[in-house]
């Protein structure tokens, strides 16, 4: 009897662990306009064209007001049980990782660690929801006030899921730090409420992701190849209609070599109650294409929590 009780307890533990949907990561990032205005930028020559990019490291090392605002927002999110990723620490971690990877060799052959150009590209600071922040001090006669702008951007669908903006009350006595704190306090609760609405929508209608179907150049079949009298793109379309929440997705664009699906609503859990991400979900299509009558090998390429590519033809 005791044994049975323990087994049930362990099973219950597993179910509750798997029953949690994958939590999106949030990170505050200074807005491009903030970095450009303050001169925290990087310039590089892209085949003759001068490109200006925000330099986050320089921003974090030089702008104490930005640090103050980020710390305040992080504190308020941590208080709601939702700790944020810290951009400064992520950048340091990446630098450290790069240094360690370049030094590391295997004991037996002295081989260096394998890293494709794609792996290198993927090693950047990222989050599922970017909190894009900008603020500026404005002066009106003897008084000063803060213009505050915070946007919550879904990194994969590029949709603004929450935002808070406005000007603070003008003051002639308060320090800029006090005005900034006031601005955060004024806007953050409403911002979190909007974020909550986004999460509620996610639970009701599924996670919104982007899926792209592509074809390798070497592939013998493309999306117009026919199986059982119908083109492959029609079979894929049917699979999406069957496997999305309430059949919600939209085909943004398509040709014989690619299909772009956006606003794809995938369920948060599979049939067994296990949390699903885009990769696990799209694995269903990968398996289906591998089976009869298609027998197509595919490569599943994941771009974070919310975007995946399925490349037809080979692995």
């Amino acid at each position: 009897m005791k044994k049975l009780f323990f087994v049930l307890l362990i099973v219950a533990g597993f179910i509750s662990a798997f029953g949690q949907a994958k939590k999106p990561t949030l990170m505050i990032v200074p807005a491009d306009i903030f970095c450009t205005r303050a001169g925290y930028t990087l310039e590089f020559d892209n085949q003759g064209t001068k490109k200006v990019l925000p330099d986050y490291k320089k921003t974090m090392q030089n702008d104490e007001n930005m640090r103050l605002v980020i710390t305040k927002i992080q504190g308020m999110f941590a208080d709601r049980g939702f700790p944020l990723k810290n951009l400064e620490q992520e950048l340091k971690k990446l630098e450290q990782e790069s240094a360690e990877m370049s030094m590391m060799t295997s004991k037996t052959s002295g081989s260096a660690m394998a890293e494709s150009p794609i792996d290198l590209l993927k090693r950047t600071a990222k989050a599922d929801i970017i909190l894009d922040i900008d603020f500026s001090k404005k002066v009106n006669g003897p008084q000063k006030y803060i213009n505050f702008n915070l946007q919550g951007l879904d990194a994969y669908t590029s949709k603004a899921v929450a935002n808070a903006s406005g000007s603070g009350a003008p003051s002639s006595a308060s320090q800029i730090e006090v005005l900034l704190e006031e601005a955060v306090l004024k806007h953050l609760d409403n911002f979190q409420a909007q974020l909550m609405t986004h999460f509620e929508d996610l639970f009701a209608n599924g996670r919104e992701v982007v899926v792209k179907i592509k074809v390798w150049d070497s592939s013998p079949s493309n999306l117009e190849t026919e199986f059982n009298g119908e083109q492959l793109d029609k079979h894929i379309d049917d699979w999406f209609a069957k496997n999305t929440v309430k059949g919600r997705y939209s085909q943004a664009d398509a040709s014989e070599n690619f299909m772009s699906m956006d606003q794809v609503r995938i369920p948060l859990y599979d049939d067994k109650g296990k949390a699903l991400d885009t990769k696990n979900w799209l694995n269903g299509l990968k398996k289906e294409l591998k089976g009869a009558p298609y027998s197509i090998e595919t490569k599943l390429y994941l771009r974070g929590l919310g975007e995946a590519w399925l490349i037809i033809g080979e692995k």
Partner: protein
Amino acid sequence: MKRKLSVVLALIFVTAIFMNGCKPPQKAVAVKYDYEVTSGGAQGVEGTTLIKITGKGKTAEAAVFDAKVNSVHALLFRGIPGTNMAKAIIPGANAENDHYFDTFFAQGGKFLQYLSVSGDGVQDKVKTSDGYKVTLLVSVKHAELRKFMEAEGKARKLTEGF
């Protein structure tokens, strides 16, 4: 024939008057939470919201108590535009009908822990035909209130489901 018809009509008329007289007197449906609320100005302390709220009662004391109840009610179920709490802590049309809140908002109820009256007490007091209407400047500890409601299972946590 004409006479018969007039008798029947008269009977119907008398019965209608009689039935109407038997009905209990119609009462206007009492509005439980009837208040006006606006922002009370820039908030000073983290986790609080400053609001200006009205309350009604037979006596001035009852009106002040009503205003205190209303201040927490406004943050829980209405949200106050123009403040840091524009959205309600517990959204949903029927959320306030939960019997749990009868005890929460009772005399000496737990709601009192989450507010403090700012300024010099009553800002405005008007004598009305029903009693008094007062206006208070109240600071509501919304962060603590939300945490309590989350712990009680009445409000949804930001991390719920993850």
